[in-house]
Every structure is written in structure tokens, then in C-alpha cells.
């Protein structure tokens, strides 16, 4: 009976087969002892942070950014509403020929040389400043001209140097407003009777803009955990391997963007982008002889071959950047006299090049502030990726120990299976925009983005990647 299982020259194989499916349990109560020695859940929470660090950090940044934007927006809206209400009241008073004169003892006022109180504050709302007027002219004229000037989108007007300090001092307490128009009624020389500060309109016109941008980034990649199947079991499901890019790739995006100011200080931006790059990666399938299907048998494992090379077909699925591929390799024994076991690892390392073409659609919210020709913006949002192409080419293959080599180097290796359709990135940018004139502006924005895709089309984790780069472009405002 024993002889059937103990071929004299193949003892190793017999022992391996004997252990193949054999299992034995430790003594009862073993788990209870083990459980007592395992660290508690809070201690392993560090492992969670370690694993999901990027996502946690990104979520925190988004939360802080969103909260800041919303709080800022509410604060600004509240202030503007208050000021508009005050302006309306002021206008009504003036239209009823009821000049605004500060007669409150605690109301701040500015003095002007040789003229009493050239700038006075509205008695009920110190946020409003009305410059004094020469006697004889009704103040309603000033208001009408101010309204006209606003409608014509007047830009800043220099105020007279002699009263500038007083005016600036008066408006200093209103510094939270984004931009002030100092409007002037457009009378002939000598008839300008007053200057009025208006807190209503910021200089920047709300409106549409479009632009062409380019982003050059460095992409680094981190492999996520694979949705595990028991791949080591060669009787089990097909082996699934993920490729890993060791190098940081240089990636270029080309954008046509359009934006619209949706509120003071806030802009929505979208557009269309195109990205193309070559992803160089490698993977190690960790195959053993037993994972292959023997196609030419000249001896097999455990003994030297007789008269030819043993050949095996190895098949596995490769998860790549934006899809999955079937890999089929035929490997042949190099030294026909060399012994090898069924458990012999092939130690394969394959290098691949993927040409990835992606259509990208950004959805961004920008919060901006600025003075003069400069505007500073903080942007955040998402980029939807539509993968157009993901062509994979195996550029190199090596086998450790040189026991096996590819049977025919000209055989096709990669067979395209499917390309993932969609992906999603989260993006943050902070930058500056400089106005060349009323229409054109240039911008430069350091950007950072990270992928949110969890699984590819093969239900395996898509590679997690981060990109850091610089976005430059030209915007045209309508």
C-alpha cells in the first residue's frame, strides 16, 4: 500500500501531495488565549490611519475649505444686505430733499481744511459716507449720478489729494468689503461738487469668462489592496495581479475652461480637458510551476527532462491603470537537465508600458479675493475622467534564476480585455491671476489632485494616484 505513494525517486512530490489539502486544528481554547494577547481595537486604529491617510487628509481639507467658503459667503451676504438697505434709506432721504447731516455727537466725522466737515456719516449708519457738497446744489443730484455711474460700471476714480486721507480714514472701517468704487459725477471741470463713496458695487463685474489652460504634473502612484481571492490555490480562481508604477510620471493636461461668477467672491468653473501619457509599470505574478498548464511534457517537475524542453502556459489577469488585461505566457525550460519542483517559483518580473488617453471634465468652485490687478483664488472640486484608450504593451520580462524563458519571444503576450470607463479625481488649487487689461488675464495655480476611483472594471482596486503640478493659462472675460 505504501509503495503506491512512495515512488522511490519522487519522494518530494509525494510529500507535497500528502500535505496539499491536509489541515489540523490547534487545541480547543486556542483562540481564547490568542484573543487575550491581541491588541485592542483602538491600538490598531493607527493601522487604519496609516492605510487611509490620504483619504482622511483630503476629506479634512475639503471639510475645512467648504466650511470656510460657506461661512465667508454668509458673512459677506449679510454685510452687503445691510449696506444695500442703508443705501436705499440714504437715497430716499436725499430724494426727499432731506440732506444728510451728521448731528449726532458720537458720529465719527472728518474735518477738511477751510470747510466744515467735508465728509459726514449717515446719522443712522456709519457704514455710509457722503462727501460734503458745495452749497447750493441739492444732494439728490449726487445720488442720481452715482446710480448712473454704477450702471455704466465706472471704475475707480482718483479722489482729490487734499481730501484723500480723510476719505480713506472714513472708509477704513469698511475694509471688509471686497472693493470700493469711488465714484465721481461726471460734470465739467469746476462743476464737480462732490465725491461719493459707494459700498455697493465691487469693481469686478460678475460675468462669464473662458480660457485655455495647461497643467503639467508629476504623478505618483500607490497600489491599493486587491479584492482578494485565494490566488495561491492553483485549483482556485484565476490569478489576478496588479501592476505597480515605480516611477513618477510627467503628465500634461490641456484644458478649455469656462467660468461664471455666481456670487461675490465665488466662481464656478468647468470645461473640457485632454490628458495623454505613457505609464511605465512593472508587476510580479509570483507564479509557480504548479500554476501553469504543461503543454510539452519531456519529464516534468522532480526530474531531468529527456530529449526536449518542458513548456508551460501561464495565464493571469493584470489590473492596470485604467482596465484589466489577460496575460498569456508560454515559458520553456532553459536547461533540460536541471531538476525543478512543482513548487518551483518562476520569479517573473514584467515591465509594461500603457498609453492612456483620457477626456477630463472639471467641476470646480473658486473663492477669490484681490486688489488691483491681482486676484488670488482657492479652488476645489472634482474632475470626472472618461478613459478613451488604455493600450498595454509588455516591454520586458525576466525570470529569476534563468530556469525558464519565454518559449517564443515573438508570441503576443498581452491581450486587451477591457478598459475602465470612468474615474473621479478630487482637486485642490491655489493661485494668482493677473489682469492684463479689462478682458484678458493670465493665471498660475499650483494644483494637487488625488484619485477617488475605488475599483476598476475587473472589480479590483484601481491604483491610487496623486498629482502635483502647475496650471497656467489665459482667461478672457466677456
Amino acid at each position, binding site marked *: 500500500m505504501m509503495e503506491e505513494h512512495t515512488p522511490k525517486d519522487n519522494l518530494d512530490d509525494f510529500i507535497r501531495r500528502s500535505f496539499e489539502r491536509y489541515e489540523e486544528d490547534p487545541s480547543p481554547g486556542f483562540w481564547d488565549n490568542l484573543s487575550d494577547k491581541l491588541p485592542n481595537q483602538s491600538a490598531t486604529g493607527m493601522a487604519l490611519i496609516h492605510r487611509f491617510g490620504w483619504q482622511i487628509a483630503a476629506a479634512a481639507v475639503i471639510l475645512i475649505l467648504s466650511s470656510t467658503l460657506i461661512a465667508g459667503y454668509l458673512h459677506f451676504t449679510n454685510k452687503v444686505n445691510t449696506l444695500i438697505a442703508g443705501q436705499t434709506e440714504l437715497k430716499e432721504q436725499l430724494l426727499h430733499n432731506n440732506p444728510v447731516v451728521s448731528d449726532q455727537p458720537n458720529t465719527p466725522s472728518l474735518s477738511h481744511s477751510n470747510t466744515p466737515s467735508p465728509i459726514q456719516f449717515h446719522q443712522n449708519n456709519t457704514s455710509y459716507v457722503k462727501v460734503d457738497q458745495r452749497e447750493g446744489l441739492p444732494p439728490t443730484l449726487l445720488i442720481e449720478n452715482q446710480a448712473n455711474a454704477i450702471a455704466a460700471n465706472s471704475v475707480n476714480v482718483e479722489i482729490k489729494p487734499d481730501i484723500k486721507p480723510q476719505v480713506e480714514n472714513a472708509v477704513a472701517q469698511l475694509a471688509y468689503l471686497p472693493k470700493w468704487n469711488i465714484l465721481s459725477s461726471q460734470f465739467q471741470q469746476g462743476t464737480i461738487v462732490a465725491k461719493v463713496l459707494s459700498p455697493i458695487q465691487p469693481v469686478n463685474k460678475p460675468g462669464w469668462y473662458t480660457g485655455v489652460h495647461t497643467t503639467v504634473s508629476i504623478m505618483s502612484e500607490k497600489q491599493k489592496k486587491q479584492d482578494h481571492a*485565494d490566488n495561491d490555490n492553483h485549483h482556485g480562481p484565476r490569478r489576478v495581479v496588479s501592476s505597480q508604477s515605480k516611477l513618477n510620471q510627467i503628465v500634461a493636461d490641456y484644458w478649455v475652461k469656462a467660468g461664471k461668477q455666481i456670487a461675490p467672491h465665488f466662481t464656478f468653473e468647468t470645461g473640457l480637458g485632454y490628458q495623454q501619457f505613457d505609464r511605465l509599470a512593472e508587476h510580479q505574478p509570483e507564479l509557480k510551476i504548479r500554476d501553469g498548464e504543461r503543454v510539452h511534457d519531456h519529464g516534468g517537475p522532480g526530474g531531468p527532462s529527456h530529449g526536449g524542453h518542458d513548456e508551460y502556459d501561464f495565464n493571469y489577469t493584470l489590473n492596470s491603470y485604467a482596465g484589466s488585461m489577460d496575460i498569456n505566457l508560454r515559458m520553456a525550460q532553459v536547461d533540460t537537465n536541471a531538476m525543478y519542483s512543482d513548487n518551483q517559483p518562476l520569479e517573473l518580473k514584467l515591465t509594461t508600458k500603457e498609453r492612456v488617453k483620457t477626456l477630463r471634465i472639471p467641476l470646480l468652485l473658486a473663492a477669490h479675493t484681490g486688489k488691483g490687478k491681482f486676484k488670488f483664488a482657492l479652488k476645489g472640486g472634482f474632475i470626472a475622467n472618461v478613459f478613451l484608450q488604455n493600450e498595454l504593451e509588455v516591454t520586458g520580462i525576466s525570470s529569476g534564476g534563468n530556469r525558464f524563458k519565454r518559449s517564443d519571444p515573438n508570441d503576443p503576450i498581452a491581450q486587451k480585455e477591457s478598459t475602465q470607463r470612468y474615474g473621479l479625481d478630487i482637486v485642490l488649487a491655489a493661485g494668482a491671476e493677473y489682469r492684463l487689461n479689462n478682458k484678458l488675464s493670465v493665471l498660475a495655480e499650483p494644483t494637487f489632485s488625488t484619485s477617488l476611483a475605488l475599483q476598476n472594471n475587473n472589480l479590483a482596486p484601481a491604483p491610487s494616484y496623486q498629482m502635483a503640478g502647475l496650471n497656467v493659462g489665459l482667461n478672457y472675460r466677456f
Partner: protein
Amino acid sequence: MTEDILKASIRGERLAQKEFYNFFKGKMFVVCLRYAKNREDAEDMLQEGFIKVFQDLHQYAGAGSLEGWVRKVIVNVALQHLKKQQRLLSTVEFDNIEIADDADHALPHLDEPMAKNLIRILHQMPDGFRTVFNLYVLEGYTHIEIAEILGISVSTSKTQYLRAKAYMRKMLAKSLMT
């Protein structure tokens, strides 16, 4: 083994870790039995091994087999366990080993699974023989790799493997004669 159990085990959830343990305990205990001198040592190795597995589980990259990764951790722990006891330094010459009469209890019992009988024979081997035999035959390492892992020469690895094999063959042959 589902992804949920794996993730929950990484988070340290005890029920998931128990599921994880139940999934692998049978196979991994056999690994420990193969390396250990006896069942008690094997349980010590298994306990240390699972503590290490749960401690490092978040480092599992997913590129290969989870069972392969767990087995690698268990084997490493088993080797460290043996090194601690300085058993791997034992390179007893096989020529000097006689199969003692009291080793008859190691002979195969035909009514038991062959793996159980082989474990019994492995337990009778010197630690050096047993370790090299395990690494070469059952883990698939080359002698060069074994030499690096154990800090011995390649020729020592080959010698110990051949002697262990001869010992195994001798024990199996003796069982056939009795």
C-alpha cells in the same frame, strides 16, 4: 475570505479577526507542526504567528495571495522561534543518527492520513534537517535562498536536505518492513 472580513480585521474588530483565524487556522497549524519539534511548540509558533499577522495585516499590499502572505509571516515567525532556541545551529551529522528503537512510535500508522504520519517523522528529525527540508520541499525555496534565510552555506543546505530526505526514506521503508 471576504474583503469585509479582511478590512474589519485590519481595523481590529475581534469578531472579524476570529473569522480570519478560523479561515486559516487549519492550514497554518500544519505549517507550524511541520517546523516544530512537537505540538506544544507548534501552538506557540501559531500564536506568535497570528499576533504578527494581525499586527502587520495593513501592510498586505494585495498584489499576491493572502494565504501566501499569511503563510510567509507564519514561516518567518517559526524560523525566528527556532533561532531563539538556537536549534538551527544544530547540524547533526546524519551518519551519527541511528533510528532508535524508541522511535518506533514515529513510524507511519496506516489508518491515519499520510500527512499526520509525515509530521510524526519530521518531529523525530534534527531541527536543521527538518527546517531545510520544509523550506526546500514544501515552501519551494532554492538552496541559495535557504542559505540566505538561515545564514548557512549553500552546500550545508544541500547536505541537510539530502540527509533529511534519506532519513525520511529510511523511516518510510522501515514501516514497510514491519
